[in-house]
């Protein structure tokens, strides 16, 4: 009996090893690069392999990207990876950071905290010096524990949960979830959009419930009246008639929708059927609503969303980013995740140049220098004209509010002073 088990084990192991060995030669060139992205990754592989070719250890910055490249959240992970690649290519073409080239090393964590830690270890084996990740919040919190232990500099483009940056070596580029809720409430009351607010939110999603909780708290302070507060969860997110009905019955004139655009498109359709047309207000998860298949764009007319980035903006920087991004992604338009990561890489560049960081320094020395550098820089990026960081790792930047008019995002003016002060107060 033992022998039988033993043979089966040996044979299986041998076969597994054979498979690995067989694929080893073909994967070795691409595995360290960004090619794990997706089916469309061929373009990425081409561009990154050129970066790898002229890079030997010691004279390149190896920047890690960890995020979901497969599975349900893969849209975010791949966007971040493309964003990183666009920025890295630009930086390299312009002479690199302090004259050293940048190499992106990436790994797929499938939005799983344990796998994310595994990815972190894998990338460490590949010589990662700075982590520009992870993409999603929970894996980010788990990995931040390990970067703290190794004292590796980490800056997350999109880990929006508050606890992501609890450690002093972790910074972030996006707004925190509660900040978005606070900012939304402030914006509504300052611009007198309405008095009675109805809320629908995804209770099973930490992003949505994080915004919701902060919004409710701030709305009370701002004198907004939350008349209906209805939740749904991941298992029943197709029929919103009950929640919409509650808001309609309560006479809400603003409907706050802090969740992702796929579900939001359904809410808009169903509200239309019920002849209910309040002011719809969303957060950055709403970005992308105009790209939903089969969605009648006229329903989104007048929808307001607070988002840091819109691919349809016409300024030169966004246009250049769009073009470069679409070349890598095979025609897919960028979203805010890609833009956040793009800004993240430029923040790393700025901080590294400020403190004269070189790849030959130890990971821990880089981290100490970067921590200092980050608080001294100010960058103008895709997601804001001016981003600065404080010691806590939270960014200070002005939020942007867009209104959909004639099927296009049109930027509304925002009051910068109010935004900056709230961002600072949440961070403290």
């Amino acid at each position, binding site marked *: *009996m033992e022998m039988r088990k033993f043979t089966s*084990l040996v044979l299986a192991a041998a076969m597994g090893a054979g498979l690995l060995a067989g694929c080893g030669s073909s994967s070795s060139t691409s595995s360290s690069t960004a090619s794990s992205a997706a089916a469309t990754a061929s373009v990425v592989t081409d561009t990154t392999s050129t970066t790898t070719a002229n890079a030997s250890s010691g004279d390149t910055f190896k920047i890690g990207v960890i995020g979901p490249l497969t599975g349900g959240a893969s849209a975010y992970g791949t966007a971040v990876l493309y964003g990183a690649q666009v920025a890295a290519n630009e930086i390299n073409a312009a002479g690199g950071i302090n004259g050293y080239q940048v190499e992106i090393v990436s790994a797929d964590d499938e939005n799983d*905290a*344990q796998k994310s830690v595994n990815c972190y270890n*894998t990338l460490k084996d590949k010589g990662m010096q700075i982590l520009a990740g992870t993409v999603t919040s929970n894996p980010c919190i788990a990995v931040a524990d390990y970067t703290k232990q190794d004292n590796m500099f980490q800056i997350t483009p999109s880990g929006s949960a508050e*606890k992501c940056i609890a450690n002093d070596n972790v910074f972030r580029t996006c707004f925190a979830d509660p900040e978005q809720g606070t900012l939304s409430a402030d914006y509504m009351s300052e611009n007198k959009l309405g008095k009675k607010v109805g809320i629908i939110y995804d*209770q*099973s999603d*930490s992003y949505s419930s994080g915004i919701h909780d902060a919004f409710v708290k701030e709305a009370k302070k701002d004198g907004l009246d939350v008349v209906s507060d209805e939740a749904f969860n991941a298992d029943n997110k197709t029929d919103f008639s009950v929640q919409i009905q509650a808001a309609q019955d309560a006479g809400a004139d603003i409907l706050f929708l802090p969740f992702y655009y796929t579900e939001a498109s359904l809410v808009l359709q169903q509200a239309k059927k019920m002849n209910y047309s309040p002011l719809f207000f969303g957060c950055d998860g709403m970005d992308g609503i105009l790209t939903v298949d089969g969605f009648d764009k006229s329903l989104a007319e007048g929808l307001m969303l607070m988002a840091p980035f819109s691919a349809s903006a016409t300024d030169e920087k966004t246009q250049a980013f769009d073009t470069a991004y679409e070349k890598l992604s095979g025609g897919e338009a960028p979203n805010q995740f890609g833009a956040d990561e793009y800004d993240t890489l430029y923040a790393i560049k700025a901080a590294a140049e400020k403190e004269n960081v070189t790849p030959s320094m130890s990971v821990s020395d880089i981290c100490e220098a970067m921590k200092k550098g980050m608080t001294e820089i100010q960058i103008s990026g895709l997601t804001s004209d001016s981003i600065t960081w404080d010691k806590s790792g939270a960014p200070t930047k002005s939020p942007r509010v867009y209104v959909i008019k004639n099927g296009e995002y049109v930027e509304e003016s925002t009051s910068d002073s109010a935004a900056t002060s709230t961002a600072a107060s949440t961070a403290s």
Partner: protein
Amino acid sequence: MSKTKTLSKTGRDHLITYGMVIIIYIVVEILLHAGLINNQMQGLLVPVCYYSVCAVALNLCVGILGELSLGHAGFMCVGAFASAIWSYQMQSTSMPAGLRFFIAFLIGIAAAMIIGVIIGIPVLRLNGDYLAIVTLAFGEIIKNLNSALFLGIDSKGIHLSLKSAIYLNLEDGVDPIVNGAQGIAGTPRDANFTIAVIVLLISLFIVQNLIDSRDGRAIMAIRDNRIAAEATGINVTKYKMLAFVISAGIAGAAGVLYSHNISTLVSQSQYFGYNVSILILVYVVLGGIGNMRGSVIATAILYILPELLRGLNKYRMFVYSIVLIVMMLLNWAPAAVMFRKKLFARFRKNEGTAEGGRKNGTA
């Protein structure tokens, strides 16, 4: 064959299992100190251990008791949350980490066992596949319940809500411990490879000794023929409960290791959903139903393999599934079994007859 002979045979069999785990542990520790294991592998050591523990627990339920459970990830979830709440609350006190972690184990195991009793009392009285259905539902319920749970402790006591953190009405400056879908963040990372291996050894010790005991024989008698077992005076429900609750408790211990290995704990389907339960069942089936050592080996291979295959990118899960199929065929297909027998018959001749007796033992 005399009775002493059979006893020593199972005894030796168990010793091989412990020996295997201990030898692997020593080898890994030596390699760790020599710096020969890369970071990726180091990160996989504890997960392999806790999934092995859970596979051993499930094997007790499936292989020895003969009842299919599809909710062992749910027991892990219970153990993980119960112990994480304790450790989170206690980490600010002066309690030494070792003692805190030990008590966390007791709490996690106790919580999982209590849930096991609650499920077992109605279901284990029934005949048929009801346990599979109920545990499947239980796993989903516990996962959803935990993701809607808000819990905080301040000077006034424990606050609980199923709606939102706001309704907890906590004092200013006190954060909720369990924050709904955001789970628990900031549990101390007390688990390490040594502790994980000790937990695995204890689990193996408990399960293997249970199998050899009088109670174990009663449990297996129920599995093989319920009516005959009942006719000989075995209290069927009692023994079923015994095995099931121990199995739940060990799965709870795996959950404790889980929640103390990474600092975030979220009750989502990718961590504790029925897919994870089925994954553990796959470890058990491919390792051999009723074979504890096989469960440990299968878990180690099947957990590490997908991580090693990361270099293959999108072909990763494709290769993994082929490996699953091939492993299954090698283990169970009659032709493969025949082939192995022939192959080993030749080795046997060279080795002499010393091993010959064991070969005829039951599989």
